[in-house]
């Protein structure tokens, strides 16, 4: 979960607590994902334990997160339906992108108690066809059209590639396959539009010099305008955005790994198409003091997958320190170095050089792993032992990294 959404979730939760909506309630969270685990932790810090996590995926049911059972929604509704007073004492929170569908499911199952959406990820959706909703959404499209006009005027390119979400790994693969797409379609010049400057930096690493970084809100409006106008000089290069993109449904029938989603589903390139590699890396010489070949860089933070608890990191730190290694935590923004390690703050363009210098990289599966996937050093990627989204595929299967040591951390070791 990114920092902006985390902040939004925290603010909304604090508002609910201040309004008295949370106290004395039996709390459930619907949908088991990374954001759910963050909410469980946040509620625990504030003294509100979660009774159960509800999830429709039978493969997830029966598992636990920090001792909290993951169960089918019908289980709690069965218990509480017979007792309306009990239902009034329930609070179901949703921090998933599929809020509308999940809320509808609960209502259809007969739940009439308190239901709260704590994060609004999806500004595209409003499940209503009322004139008021349509009017608001048309205005949103018009704002997007104006944003696009501004981009066309300032960039003046033959073609535009839009990376609609702020995730480094997504942008990495978009940029890796974009050259093949441009060649196939005989496009000579192309502007890249991203959310935020970090994603723009990824495009820069692949040599794309014409770039524009937007806020997520402006990006969402731009994307809607691109859909509405059916613009032919644009490709929205993402594996599951926007809602018109049904690509991820493929996972209901077979495993299509993350990179293949980009190669074939996003860009329509041949299965054996070779991705481009980043060519514009920055050097690190003289900028870091780590011992060459005898250091390890840890990367414990991720957005798309659930975190791995401190105990496993502490074991890794102890192991390498005993072997005489210097141990670093790669940090950005407000992230903290793990206890007992030094903070490594380098730009994305310098990160590959830094880990090659260190000799060893160990990270939870995140976009950073993609950024340094070509690094010539020992590379270990850690996966939480959980399913990807609402699919039957494990995170480690979907995000497997070729040429890396892929390790699944079992729950008893990962959560602590």
């Amino acid at each position, binding site marked *: 979960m990114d920092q902006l959404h985390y902040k939004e979730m925290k603010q909304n939760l604090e508002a609910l607590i201040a309004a008295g909506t949370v106290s004395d309630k039996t709390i459930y969270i619907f949908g088991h994902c990374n954001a759910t685990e963050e909410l469980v932790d946040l509620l625990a810090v504030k003294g509100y334990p979660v009774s159960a996590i509800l999830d429709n995926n039978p493969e997830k049911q029966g598992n636990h997160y920090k001792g909290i059972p993951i169960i089918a929604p019908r289980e709690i509704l069965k218990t509480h339906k017979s007792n309306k007073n009990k239902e009034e004492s329930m609070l179901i929170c949703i921090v998933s992108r599929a809020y509308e569908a999940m809320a509808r499911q609960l209502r259809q199952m007969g739940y009439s108690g308190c239901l709260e959406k704590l994060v609004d990820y999806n500004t595209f959706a409003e499940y209503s066809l009322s004139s008021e909703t349509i009017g608001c959404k048309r205005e949103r499209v018009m704002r997007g059209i104006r944003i696009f006009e501004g981009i066309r005027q300032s960039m003046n390119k033959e073609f535009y590639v839009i990376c609609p979400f702020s995730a480094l790994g997504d942008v990495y693969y978009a940029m890796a396959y974009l050259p093949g797409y441009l060649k196939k379609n005989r496009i000579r010049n192309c502007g890249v539009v991203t959310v935020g400057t970090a994603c723009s930096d990824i495009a820069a690493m692949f040599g794309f010099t014409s770039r524009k970084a937007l806020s997520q809100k402006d990006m969402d409006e731009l994307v809607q305008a691109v859909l509405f106008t059916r613009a032919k000089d644009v490709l929205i290069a993402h594996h599951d955005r926007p809602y018109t993109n049904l690509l991820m449904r493929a996972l209901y029938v*077979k495993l299509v790994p993350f990179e293949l989603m980009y190669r074939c589903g996003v860009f329509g390139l041949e299965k054996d198409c070779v991705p481009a590699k980043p060519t514009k890396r920055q050097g690190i010489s003289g900028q870091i003091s780590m011992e060459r070949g005898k250091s390890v860089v840890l990367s414990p933070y991720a957005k798309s997958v659930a975190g791995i608890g401190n105990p496993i990191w502490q074991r890794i730190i102890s192991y390498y320190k005993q072997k005489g290694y210097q141990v670093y935590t790669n940090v950005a923004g407000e992230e903290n170095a793990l206890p007992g390690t030094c903070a490594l703050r380098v730009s994305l363009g310098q990160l590959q050089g830094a880990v090659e210098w260190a000799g060893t990289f160990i990270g939870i599966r995140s976009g950073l792993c993609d950024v340094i996937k070509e690094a010539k050093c020992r590379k270990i990627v850690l996966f939480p032992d959980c399913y990807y989204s609402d699919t039957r595929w494990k995170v480690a299967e979907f995000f497997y990294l070729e040429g890396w040591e892929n390790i699944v951390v079992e729950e008893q070791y990962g959560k602590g």
Partner: protein
Amino acid sequence: MFKTLERYLREYDKVLLIEEPGSILPKDILKDKPKRSHVSGQRILILSSVSWKDQTEDMTFCQISKEEARHFREIYYTYEFSDRFFLLPKGHMNYASLHRLVDTGILSLEEFFDALLQ
């Protein structure tokens, strides 16, 4: 016109607007029910302004006017008004698509529909 769309969404589990059904829907795909247990039991409505006659117990084909199809397509591209309405457009798509996985040999057409209707 959107009242009709609301009614479709009330009466069916999934509504597909297909701009060129002849090219994307092999006739036998909807009849092969034993293999598609998840489809069985769902009420599926296929809308198109192009005549394409086929029907099974679970799927209903409805020919709509070009004007209706244009309105439905326009509202679909204005915002996500439902997660049970899908558009399978013809021609250029400026976003990633499940159909590209068929074109590149990752999915068969049968798997495409299984994924879509899941």
